C-alpha cells in the first residue's frame, strides 16, 4: 500500500479528485480548505523572558561572550523563579510550616496573581495577622524587587516579621483556648488522641481469632480434615482403643468412599471403661495369620477424609 500520511490527507484527496479517482468531494473537503492545517513550527522552544528563567539562562548570561564555541541549544529551558530559592530556604528554616493543612479544591480558573506586589507593601502585617508561608516568601521577594534591598537582607526582614506574627497568633490561640476551657468548653479528641484511636484499631485488626480463622480456612479447602477430637483427651486412654482396633484388623480409610456411608463411631473410651480385650495381641506372625485366617469383615471407621472433590 502507498504510504499514507495524516498531515497530507487533504493533498492526496485533491490529487485523487483531480484524476477522478474519487467521484464526489468528501464532506470535510471544503472545511479543510478553509482552515488548512498549520505546518510544524521551526524546531526551537519559544522566546522566554527573564522573570521565569534561572540566572544562568537569563539574557545577560546568554549574551556574554562564550568561553567555547557551541551551537545554541534547542532544548526547552528550565522554568525557575526567585521565589523557588527563597521557598527552599524558608522550609529549611521552618520545616513544620509544611505540615499546615492546605486546601486542594479544584477551581475553574487558576488563582489570581499574588497581591503583594509594588512599593506600598512595607510590612508583612499589612497582609494580615496570620500570614502563610507563601505570603512571607512573596513579601521577601517584593522587598528585593521594589525596594532594592539585597535578597539576603530582604529574607531576614521577612522571616523576622513572619516569626513575630506567628508567635502572636499562637499566643492568642492558646490564651483563647485556656479562656474557653475556663468557661467549660467541651472539645472533641485532639489529633494525638485521634491518631491513638486509629493505631489501636489497626492493631486490633491483627489479633487472630483462631477458631474463626481455622473454620474459614477449612471451609475454603477442597480436601478437608475434620478431626474427631480436638486437642488431648480428657483422661489417659492407655492406648486401649488403638490396640483393640489393631487386634480386630481395622485399618483407617485414607480415601472416602461415597457408596459406603455407614460409619461407626470408633472414639476411644476413657480409662475405666469396659476392658473387653486382652491388652496384648495374640502371638504369631500376623502375615501367616492372615493367610490361614482371612480377616474378619472390617467395620468401617468414621471416615476421616471428608473432602469430596467437586
Amino acid at each position, binding site marked *: 500500500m502507498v504510504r499514507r500520511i495524516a498531515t497530507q490527507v487533504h493533498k492526496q484527496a485533491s490529487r485523487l479528485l483531480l484524476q477522478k479517482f474519487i467521484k464526489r468531494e*468528501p464532506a470535510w473537503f471544503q*472545511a479543510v480548505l478553509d482552515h488548512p*492545517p498549520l505546518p510544524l513550527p521551526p*524546531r526551537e522552544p*519559544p522566546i*522566554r523572558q527573564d522573570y521565569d528563567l534561572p540566572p544562568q539562562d537569563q539574557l545577560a548570561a546568554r549574551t556574554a561572550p562564550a568561553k567555547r564555541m557551541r551551537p545554541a541549544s534547542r532544548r*526547552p529551558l528550565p522554568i525557575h523563579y526567585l521565589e523557588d530559592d527563597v521557598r527552599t530556604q524558608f522550609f529549611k528554616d521552618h520545616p513544620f510550616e509544611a505540615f499546615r493543612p492546605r486546601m486542594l479544591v*479544584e477551581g475553574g480558573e487558576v488563582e489570581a496573581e499574588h497581591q503583594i506586589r509594588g512599593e506600598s507593601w512595607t510590612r508583612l502585617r499589612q497582609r494580615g495577622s496570620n500570614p502563610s508561608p507563601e505570603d512571607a516568601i512573596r513579601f521577601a521577594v517584593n522587598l528585593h524587587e521594589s525596594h532594592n534591598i539585597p535578597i539576603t537582607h530582604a529574607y531576614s526582614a521577612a522571616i523576622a516579621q513572619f516569626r513575630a506574627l506567628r508567635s502572636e497568633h499562637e499566643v492568642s490561640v492558646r490564651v483563647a483556648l485556656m479562656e474557653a476551657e475556663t468557661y467549660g468548653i467541651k472539645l472533641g479528641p485532639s489529633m494525638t488522641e485521634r491518631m491513638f484511636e486509629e493505631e489501636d484499631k489497626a492493631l486490633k485488626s491483627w489479633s487472630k481469632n483462631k477458631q474463626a480463622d481455622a473454620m474459614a480456612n477449612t471451609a475454603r479447602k477442597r480436601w478437608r480434615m475434620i478431626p474427631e477430637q480436638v486437642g488431648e483427651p480428657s483422661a489417659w486412654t492407655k492406648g486401649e482403643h488403638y490396640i483393640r482396633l489393631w487386634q480386630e484388623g481395622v485399618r483407617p480409610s485414607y480415601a472416602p468412599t461415597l457408596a459406603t456411608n455407614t460409619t461407626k463411631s470408633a472414639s476411644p473410651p476413657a480409662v475405666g471403661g469396659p476392658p473387653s480385650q486382652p491388652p496384648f495381641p495374640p502371638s504369631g506372625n500376623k502375615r501367616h495369620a492372615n493367610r490361614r485366617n482371612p480377616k474378619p469383615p472390617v467395620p468401617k471407621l468414621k471416615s476421616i477424609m471428608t473432602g469430596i472433590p467437586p
Partner: protein
Amino acid sequence: MSTGSHSLATQFPRAVARRVRQLPRLQASFSGARHVSQTAEDRPPLTEEQWQDMQSERGTFQSFMDTFSRYGSTQTRDNTFQPHHTLHRPVAPNQLTLSALMAAGAHLGHSKSLMNPNFTPYAYGIRAGITVIDMDHTLPLLRRAAKVVRGVAAKAGSVVFVGTSPELSTVVRKAAERMGEYGYHVGSKWLPGTLTNRLAMFGAGTVENVQVTPDLVIFLNPLANLHAIRECAQNHIPTVGIVDSNVDPRIVMYPIPANDESVKTAELVAGVLSVAGREGVEISKEEANRRKERAKFVARMTSPNSSRREPAVA
C-alpha cells in the same frame, strides 16, 4: 463573582420569608403572610395603630436589608464552579480561557527525558522534571480544530469522537450526543479493521447503501489509537488529536498540544469541539431547510397548471 444585581433578598429568599413570618403582630392580623388560609373577607380589618406598627416593622426590616446587602458573598450555586461543570457545561470555542485550561492541568506534559524532539516548538520549558506545554500555541490550534469541526458538520459530515479509556468513555459519549445524528463515539477499544475491513465488519448490504467511513475523527488519546489513525489516513479521513509532549505532533492532521492524561482537559477539549459541531449541525439543518423551500418555490413556479401572478404575455 457577579456584582450588584444580587441583593440579599434574591440570595436568601427563604430567610426573607422567615423574617416576614417572624414579624410580630402581623401573622394574625395582616394577610401578607402566606400561611393564613383566610380570604380577604374573613380577616378582621386592621386598626390605625396596627397599621402603623406594621409599617414601621417593614421599614426596619427593609433598612436592615438595604444596609447589609452591600456586604457578604454574592456566590450562588449557579455562579460557582463545580468539578462536574467541565463535562456537563461545555463552553464555546471563543469562550474557553487559558486560565481554565491551566486549571485543568492541560500544560503538564510528560517527563523531560521522554520529550519527543519534534514537540520542541510546543514546549515552553521544564519544571519539576516535566515538560510544560506552551499554552499560547494550544488555544489557537484548538480554535482552528473547532472551525474544522463546525465546517464538517455544516456539510452534514459525520464526526467520530474516540476516547478509549474508562474515564474518557463518558466524555466521548456526551460529545457525540451533542452532535445528534452526525456524532459518533468509540469509548472502548477501536476494533482493528473498522475502516480497512469494513466489508467484513459491517456486511455487504450496509457498505453498499450507507457511507460507513466518517468525515472527521477526533482522538482524545491518540497514542493508544495509532492503528486507528493509520486507518483514517489510508481512507483519506482528516484527524484531530490531543498530542502530549512524548508524541510527534504530526501523527494527526490538527494536533492540539495538551495533557492527554488529564480527564478534565479531555472534557474541555471535547466540549469545545462538540459545541462547535453542534453549531455546524444547526447550520446544515438551516441549509437543508432553505434548499427544500427553494425547491418548493421552484416547483411551484415551473409547474404548468399553477396560477401565476403575472399572466402570460398574450
